[in-house]
């Protein structure tokens, strides 16, 4: 009975829907920026959307860096009730495209000339086959190292440019009774640390081969052993209670002078700024030792939905996301930098300006690389398999050689 009633009701609704006049652009947006500054940043987009006559239905689902949102998304797609726009990133966009559920927004992308506005490697993430299927919001740099300025000054330490320099500085700090590295022992944080180490020790070309192409010879190379060795060394610079610590508590340790350094993406900056700290004065930012640039780009993908108002909503949303104003306001709030390269950065802080300059330089030199730890480089099963090994190694006494053997096996088993 319920079933029949529901069927009748939904038929009636769809008749109503098609009969009703075009009601202006509509969008139901599934995202996981649900609290504090992040939510306010999304609200900027909603406001612009409304100013352009659109109706925004908010579908926030937080948790586990989007895990819960992805659970909800699967349920929604399977029940034939997909949201209009979804926060998605990295190769997952292409995976969803392969399921045949993504809409084509090439019209907007071509009209707005996205091709010339985005760094090539970032534009690549937004395309599915020959079409555009997602709009980028920002570029987070992952390979940042943050430092407490006064601790470094007191101990006569410069920002390290190689991991060896870092190790030397850490020994000195440890002797002075300061925790050298503030770290939170959660799998994704271990992975974040690991990928910056691989980049620093192996260089951009090695990073590409090992953690993007999953080339077996790179995965079992001596360079990879050296990377695990460095992870083991870093483990010695972390305090005993790091397990399970949230990243922001690790940042607080740097702020309070308990610890000297933290390796974390540029969202850590927001934590410093919220506490009233000034970049260059209270805290220092630099890229992690070595060259290259690891990016983590947030984006929105559009799902296939019926109805002109929804399609209009998708086009409007895509256009606004890539709009100069939104990219500027949003990223100043969030600590990242705009994805489009023609936004003036005068109002941004010095760390963001450094990030933008480095992005342009590494894009030109081919060392602008996707972050594996933040789901930009690999499909979920592969990146997950690598993270399992990294975190198991970091949290045990496993030897580097064993870790490399396990890594090769895990990657092979994940396909």
């Amino acid at each position, binding site marked *: 009975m319920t079933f029949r009633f529901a069927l009748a009701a939904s038929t009636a609704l769809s008749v109503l829907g098609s009969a009703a006049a075009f009601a202006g652009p509509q969008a139901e947006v599934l995202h996981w920026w649900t609290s504090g500054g992040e939510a306010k940043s999304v609200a900027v987009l909603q406001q612009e959307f409304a100013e352009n006559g659109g109706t925004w239905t908010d579908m926030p689902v937080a948790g586990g860096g989007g895990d819960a949102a*992805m659970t909800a998304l699967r349920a929604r797609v399977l029940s034939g009730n997909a949201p209009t726009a979804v926060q998605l990133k990295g190769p997952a966009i292409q995976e969803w495209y392969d399921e045949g559920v993504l809409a084509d927004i090439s019209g907007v992308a071509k009209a707005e000339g996205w091709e010339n506005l985005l760094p090539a490697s970032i534009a690549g993430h937004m395309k599915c086959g020959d079409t555009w299927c997602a709009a980028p919001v920002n570029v987070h740099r992952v390979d940042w190292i943050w430092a407490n300025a006064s601790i470094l000054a007191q101990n006569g330490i410069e920002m390290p440019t190689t991991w060896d320099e870092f190790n030397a500085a850490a020994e000195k700090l440890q002797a002075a009774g300061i925790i050298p590295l503030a770290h939170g022992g959660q799998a994704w944080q271990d992975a974040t640390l690991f990928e910056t180490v691989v980049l620093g020790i192996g260089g951009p070309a090695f990073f590409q081969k090992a953690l993007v192409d999953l080339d077996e010879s790179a995965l079992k190379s001596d360079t990879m052993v050296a990377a695990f060795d460095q992870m083991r060394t870093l483990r010695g610079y972390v305090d005993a209670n790091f397990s399970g610590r949230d990243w922001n508590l690790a940042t607080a340790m740097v702020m309070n002078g308990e610890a000297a350094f933290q390796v974390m993406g540029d969202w850590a900056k927001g934590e410093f700024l919220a506490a009233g700290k000034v970049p260059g004065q209270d805290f220092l930012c630099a890229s992690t030792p070595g060259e290259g640039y690891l990016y983590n780009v947030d984006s929105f993908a559009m799902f296939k939905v019926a109805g002109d108002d929804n399609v209009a909503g998708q086009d409007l949303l895509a256009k606004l996301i890539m709009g100069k104003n939104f990219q500027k306001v949003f990223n100043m709030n969030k600590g990242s930098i705009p994805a489009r390269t023609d936004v003036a950065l005068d109002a941004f802080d010095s760390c963001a300006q450094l990030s933008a300059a480095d992005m342009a330089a590494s894009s030109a030199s081919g060392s602008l690389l996707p972050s594996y730890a933040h789901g930009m480089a690999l499909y979920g099963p592969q990146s997950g398999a690598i993270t399992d090994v990294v975190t198991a190694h970091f949290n045990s006494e496993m030897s580097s050689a064993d870790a490399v053997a396990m890594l090769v096996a895990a990657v092979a088993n994940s396909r």
Partner: protein
Amino acid sequence: MTRWLEHHLPKAVLAPSFLAVLVFVYGFIGWTAWVSLTRSKLMPRYEIDGFGQFVRLFASPRWDTAFGNLFIFGLLFVVISLVLGLLLAILLDQRIRVEGVIRTIYLYPMALSLIVTGTAWKWVLNPGLGLEAVVRGWGFENFRFDWLVNSDMAIYTVVIAGVWQASGFVMALFLAGLRSVDQEIIRAAEVDGIPTYRIYSAIIIPSMAPIFMSAFIVLTHLAIKSFDLVIALTGGGPGYATDLPATYMYAMAFSRGDIGQAAASAMVMMAVVFAIVVPYLYSELRPRHD
């Protein structure tokens, strides 16, 4: 006609529930079994591919850990909660004036969502922030309680938090049972001079068999589904030392987009549950001749 209806009414009452369970439990288990034989990644696919997912599952060191933890955690959690619940119920049954208050204190953890109590526990158990730091602050410099950050011991902190949450409810079940035992029999036993502990062990506790069954099923259900607990408390860490099958399955299905693998792990998990629960149910439900 009415006689016929009257005769079949009990079946008719049970039928909708039975059908629902058939479809939404056993049908879905069948669906999962099917998917576990496919190469489903991001979304379920239905082309049968063989037992590859199970081969992958058993080759995964992380699954080994998760599977082992199910037994450590499940056994300790169920046994400790049962014993503690019974003990607290017996203590509370001694005509305490503030019983209402104490009972509510024991019960309230069940009311709180682990989404956030997990954070509070994390702080309490963290050696640098919680219990260890506080006790050391009192002057006991050698006090150590660092299970949370110790790969070998972390699973026991999950047991502590789990027991904290569930034992109050078990206590309530037993308390209800204790109070419904026939008081006449107890009084008669007291008159006969039987010591208190014997009254409990020989008369009261054996008469609560159905309560043990309810408690066992409630606890086993919680143990198998312990998911929020691990996510909130340890996130599966250090490393993946506190991973459980439920978190493994969720990670595969929803964070990694490896649905075939998740389905395979679910099938193994359900096989284990089947092996443990069915003999128990059989022994509890078989007709007794007394």
